[in-house]
């Protein structure tokens, strides 16, 4: 029962991207007479700047992660944490990303890239990682920028609430990926 619902949802999901690619311009051109081609090109220009802008962050994070793994330090850390993680069914491979996600968007993108490179986009680790990445935000950065912009220095319960939500999001990512894709 659940399997068939999940199956049909996953089967439907493969139409989402093509439908968006056609549906959004369709609405824009028929209903609103938007110059879709020109607007598209204007938006697409940002793709280059963003991709180039993340290069220094990716170099910094990927080098550090690569060194950490090659030295054997990651294995030591994961062996140390494995009993606890196993107990709650949390894959140790996804721990670095879960810890990095609230700290740095570019850093966690680097870690996700690393998961995809190492295990392949088809692996459960990559899927859990991508779910974690998509379902959470860089809490520290957002709080600093948003509160900083209006001069609020006393943030009250904002950080506690944000980090608790991040932890629940990471656990939920593992839970739902194992349930639906594992």
């Amino acid at each position, binding site marked *: 029962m659940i399997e068939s619902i*999940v199956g049909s949802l*996953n089967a439907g*999901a*493969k139409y989402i*991207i093509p439908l968006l*690619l056609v549906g*959004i311009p369709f*609405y*824009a051109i028929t209903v609103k007479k*938007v110059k879709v081609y020109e*607007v598209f*090109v*204007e*938006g697409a220009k940002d*793709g280059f700047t*963003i*991709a*180039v802008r*993340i290069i220094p962050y*990716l*170099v910094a*994070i990927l*080098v*550090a*992660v690569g*060194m*950490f793994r*090659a*030295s*054997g330090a990651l294995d030591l850390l994961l062996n140390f944490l494995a009993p606890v993680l196993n107990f709650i069914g949390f894959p140790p491979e996804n721990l670095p990303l879960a810890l*990095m996600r*609230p*700290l740095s968007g570019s*850093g966690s993108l680097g870690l*996700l890239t690393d998961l995809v*490179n190492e295990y392949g986009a088809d692996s459960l680790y990559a*899927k859990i990682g*991508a779910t974690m990445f*998509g*379902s959470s*935000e860089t*809490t*520290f950065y*957002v709080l600093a*920028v948003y509160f900083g*912009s209006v*001069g*609020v220095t*006393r*943030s*009250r*319960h904002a950080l*506690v*609430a*944000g980090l608790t*939500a991040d932890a629940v*999001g990471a656990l939920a990512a593992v839970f*739902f990926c194992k349930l*639906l*894709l594992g």
Partner: protein
Amino acid sequence: MLNYIWFGMMFISVVVGIFTGNIDAVTEAAINMAKVAVEISIGLIGIMALWLGIMKIAEASGLIRIIARGLKPITVRLFPDVPADHPAIGSIVLNMAANLLGLGNAATPLGLKAMEELQELNPKKDTATNAMVMFLAINTSSVQLIVPATVVALMGATASQIFLTTILATTASTITAIIIVKILEKTKRFSVENAS
């Protein structure tokens, strides 16, 4: 914080590498990964451009504004201290709508505008209001309908599989955020008077 994490990882790597005899592998990994980082970024350009172009069309066609109107009944309940017709609500709703559609670039300017308007209602300018904390908690728990462009670019065809899991996980974290904020805002420890 990131400074310590980043430096700590490299420092530990070198120390562990020396003890385990893996130091050659550490050097090789550092040089190799620097190269890989650039190759990945360059590879992302085309897919990022495609996604951002489509999202710009959604913005220009007013699709975001339509979603904004649909979400209004919810925002009234989440931000009881903010008058329903206050401009802050409009900016909050637009920011959430931009987040829903994965429009990070559009979301930030709208979010900062919302903060400015919430600050007008704030009697104690250096202290966060309940509405501000609620807004940021929802924002950082990232209500998202669409998987981010970077993830689509990285995951390729597999990206469609994580649509559902992402929505479920983000729903769990957002509901948690709302409940925690509603509970904590009433406690003495986080009251406006005791704020730190």
